[in-house]
C-alpha cells in the first residue's frame, strides 16, 4: 500500500485517504458556456506519468491537499495545500518541515 504525505499528519497509509481527482480549476459558472462547463465536468487528462491531484485525508486530519503522483509507479512527490489556500495565506506554509518543496519527494 502506498503512503501519502499529508502536509499535516506526515506519511500515512493510502487507505486513510480519499482520492478526489485530477487538479482542475473550476471555471467561473457565470462566464462559461455549457460546453466548456461540461469539459470541466467530464474531460480528463488521465496521463500515464506524473499528474497533479487532490486527496482528502478522510480518516485523519480531514484536510484536502495536492500531490504529484506518477500514475505508473505510484511514486508521490511535492505535497502541498490546495492552491486556493496557499493563495489565501500568501505563501504561508501549513506546517514545518514536511511540505516538500524539492522534487525529490518522499523517499519511503
Amino acid at each position: 500500500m502506498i503512503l501519502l504525505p499529508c502536509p499535516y499528519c506526515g506519511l500515512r497509509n493510502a487507505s486513510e485517504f480519499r482520492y478526489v481527482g485530477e487538479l482542475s480549476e473550476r471555471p467561473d459558472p457565470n462566464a462559461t458556456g455549457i460546453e466548456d462547463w461540461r469539459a470541466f465536468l467530464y474531460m480528463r487528462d488521465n496521463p500515464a506519468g506524473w499528474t497533479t491531484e487532490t486527496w482528502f485525508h478522510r480518516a485523519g486530519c480531514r484536510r484536502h491537499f495536492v500531490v504529484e503522483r506518477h500514475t505508473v509507479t505510484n511514486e508521490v512527490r511535492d505535497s502541498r495545500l490546495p492552491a486556493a489556500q496557499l493563495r489565501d495565506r500568501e505563501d504561508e506554509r501549513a506546517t514545518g518541515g514536511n511540505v516538500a518543496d524539492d522534487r525529490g519527494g518522499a523517499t519511503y
Partner: protein
Amino acid sequence: MAEAAPVARSPISPAPPVTVEHGWEVSTRRSGADPRIMDCTPLAKVLVLASADGEVARALGVPYGRAAHDEHGTLVVGSGPGEWLLLAPPGTGAAVAGRVEEVPDEGLVSVFDATHGRALMRITGTRAADLLAKVCGIDLSEEVTPDGAAFRSSVAKLVTDVVRDDRDGERSYLLHCERSSGQYLFDTLLDAGHEFGIEIEGFAAAEAQGGRG
C-alpha cells in the same frame, strides 16, 4: 414537572455491577488485568476549533499531534490542525469550555461540549500496544508515538482519535470515536485483547482507586 433526575448513558453497555455516579450509569467492576479496558465516556469532552497560531492555540499550549495535562488536570489533546479535544472529569464540561471562551482571540473560535457526541475508552497494560497493533496501522513504537502523542487514524476501520496517555508508567491509550460506534469499537478491542487475557475495568472502580478515567 418533577421528572426523575435524568440518567446519562454511555453507548457502551456497562459491565455489571452497575451504579450511577455523577449522573452517569457506570460499571463498578474491578480488574487489575494486563491489559484492561475501561469505558471513559462520562468524562467531559470539549472540542475547540480555532486558528492553529492564534491566542487560543497559545493558551492551550499543545500543537496537533501532542497531548498534555494542563494545570487544571485537563488533558488537552491536539486532535487536528486547529482542533483540540479537552478531556476533564465528568460534569466539568461547561467550566472547561468557559475557560477557553475567555481567551481573547481575533479569529473565529468555536467551543463545543462534545461529551454526548463521542465515546471514549482506555486500554492500559504492557500489552496495550500489541493489542492496538492488531487494529491500527500507526507505528506505536516509542520513537514514533511516545507518551503524549496523539493522532487520528483508522482503528478497526473506524475513524478514531488515539492518545497515548500512560498511567503511572504503564502503557495506556485513550480512544475517542463518534458515539454511535462506541459499542462496536469497545467490542472489537475486547476481541483483539482476548489472546492477551483482557478484562473490563469499570469507570467507577477507577474513580475509587483515585485514578480518574
